């Protein structure tokens, strides 16, 4: 650990995490090393919260644990950034969502096997943040890959009562000719 201290480790981990961080997760940061006690963690957190007094972010405790939050006073400024038009999701994002909807619960590896391309973290993150997919567990195989499924919000947003209402995609397959496929490979969006 040498010149990195406990407070700094927690500070980095809290900023890297998109979800509030529990004491249990903080202990996990230390892997095989001896983890600090809850008392030590809380002391470091209190110290860290002090460091951020008067800054633009503050360390707060919420139900799921601790997280850094931008202070409310900045909301009017941040609101000025948000008048852009909604973008579009890439083909990769749509295909990943489709795979999760039709084949859930499914791991990233299984999606990759069908798509033939690595699924990047950003896509999964986008869909999670959108509230359409969620992690429902881990598959008990080496690496314990995360299992993803669609959410109730996904059904609501797509106007479905249940997954069974998803149209049968197999019926829609028109086998494209080879050169069409080649073109598809080259169309980036």
């Amino acid at each position: 650990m040498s010149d990195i201290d406990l407070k700094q480790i927690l500070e980095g981990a809290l900023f890297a995490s998109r979800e509030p961080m529990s004491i249990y997760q903080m202990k996990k940061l230390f892997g095989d090393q001896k983890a600090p006690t809850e008392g030590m963690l809380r002391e470091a957190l209190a110290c860290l919260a002090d460091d951020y007094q008067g800054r633009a972010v503050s360390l707060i405790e919420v139900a799921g644990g601790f997280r850094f939050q931008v202070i409310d006073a900045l909301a009017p400024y941040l609101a000025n950034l948000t008048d852009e038009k909604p973008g579009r999701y890439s083909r990769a994002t749509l295909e990943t969502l489709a795979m999760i909807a039709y084949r859930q619960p499914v791991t990233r590896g299984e999606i990759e096997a069908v798509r033939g391309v690595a699924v990047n973290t950003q896509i999964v993150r986008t869909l999670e943040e959108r509230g359409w997919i969620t992690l429902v567990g881990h598959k008990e195989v080496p690496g314990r890959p995360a299992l993803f499924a669609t959410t109730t919000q996904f059904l609501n947003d797509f106007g479905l009562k249940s997954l069974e209402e998803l149209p049968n995609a197999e019926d829609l397959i028109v086998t494209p000719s080879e050169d069409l496929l080649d073109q598809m490979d080259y169309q980036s969006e």
Partner: protein
Amino acid sequence: MITHVQGELPLALVEGSPLTQLPEDLYIPPDALEVILDAFEGPLDLLLYLIRRQNLDIIQINVAEITRQYMSYIAVLKAMRFELAAEYLVMAAMLAEIKSRALLPRPAGTEEDEEEDPRAELIRRLLEYETVKTSAEALDALSRVDRDFQIAEAQKPDIDGRTAAPTVDLSELVLAFGELLARARLSSAHQIEWEPLSTRQRMSDALMKLKDRSELTLSDLFVADEGKAGVVVSFLAILELVREGLCALIQARPGSQIYIRRVTGDV
């Protein structure tokens, strides 16, 4: 497979003479050859390896010697019936040509054009490839997001008029899946049968419930107003989850309550 125990049976013919043992500068055990071949990115990479192993400058290579070593590799690989990519054979042909040119006396008075000198061309290609190989390594050594560092982020305060997220039409989603299936069908010979969606949804529901509680009873998954069909779907979903190793069924003694449990505790 040719065994190389039989002393008299040559492994291969190299430049007309039988090769009865592996080249002595080939330090690799034969059964590792396939692995080694996988480690090379192509014939240029293999040539570079042969050159670098001798601490030689590409510019100063003795083409005849490198050709001999390269041919030995190829001969052994062919003799052992490894599937060789065509590129390796093309390179072998090119090396053979360079060597034969070197052996032929140059007709007097004909100045050989540098551009067409295959030795210079080979050296140019080796240097160029080495640059790419080194830049790839240098690129990989740079600090990279998610591998070496994470983006620092804090929760935003509540903001009115948040950017509208992109919307997706159901037909777009279905079309994307149809295309994906069509593509997957072309590239893979085998087809997998999947559970009907009703079962898969129930599987997700069960896992979702197991996120909050460490165990469920069977009746937690049955919804009364779904009737018999609902029970069947739930039952199939549980069987599928157990088969895929996603949860376990526990019963203390015959006739007692059956529990569905997460396979491990720390989700």
